[in-house]
């Protein structure tokens, strides 16, 4: 079990960040925090997840 945007999310052993986000339904373009640290797009397909990992999927919004 991991957490994506504060929601519990079930994963299988050996799953990468990219695979989990695809299952979550994340829509490109997005940026990712993995356990509180920025994870570049180039690393998302190779970074393995562990139990209780926390992902934040971030995208553009209005700002001042």
């Amino acid at each position, binding site marked *: 079990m991991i957490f994506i*945007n504060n929601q519990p999310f079930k994963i299988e052993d050996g799953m990468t960040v990219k695979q989990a986000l695809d299952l979550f339904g994340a829509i490109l373009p997005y*940026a990712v925090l993995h356990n509180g640290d920025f994870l570049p797009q180039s690393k998302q397909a190779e970074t393995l997840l562990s139990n209780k990992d926390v992902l934040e999927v*971030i995208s553009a919004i209005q*700002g001042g």
Partner: protein
Amino acid sequence: MNSSLNIYGTPLTSRLFIGSALYASPKIMLDSIQASGAEVVTLSLSRQNPEANGGQAFWDYIKSLGLHLLPNTAGCHSVKDAVNMALMSRELFETDWIKLELVGDDYNLQPDPIALVKATETLIHQGFKVLPYCTDDLVIARHLVDLGCEVLMPWGAPIGTGKGILNPYALQAFRDRFPETTIVVDSGIGLPSHATQALEMGVDAVLLNTAVAKANNPVLMAQSFAKAIEAGRGAYLAGPMAERNTASPSTPTIDSPFWHQS
């Protein structure tokens, strides 16, 4: 009349930076931004909700404008949060510009000056072009410039208040102490006359959002700001008259029909 503004080597014609938040609808946002003539638009980041299409519609609208993007770090309270936000913004928006906001007090959203300097140092080392949102404190500003900031963004008044330039003396001192630095007044502007005042003082540009987005007619207000900023810049370049304490007739009175030499 309006000589070019330069932001980290990028020349700009408009001296108005505009925000993309708080508009009643996407159409009003787009129409207002276009009416303002701004070439720089600010935006931010938030957790994605795939059920709401991940904010894709907003992103498509903003891209369609073809403007320079200035992502902010709004809502960040720590150096780590701000740096992470900047790194994500650079990847998403493909720009190394970052409007660095680090809240130090939730009452007036005043920037945390210590964290601001630390985050600026980290981000500049990582290749960012930092536009720090700061107060009008000259000492903090000196640290930011010494770290490599070519742009400073002092507040006029707290964010969203629309109170205008609360401390004109401090802002003028800011301008005078950093003559080689681009100064953009960020926050507190409520009326076009506030923007004119800033430009008349020699400030290079203003960044605003709420004043346009929350106007009864945002498009008309955006146009009004554009004119006000042009007027302020023109007045600064023209050089104002010296203020006097006593009256001085503008019409020559010598040899007028009613003139009597005593």
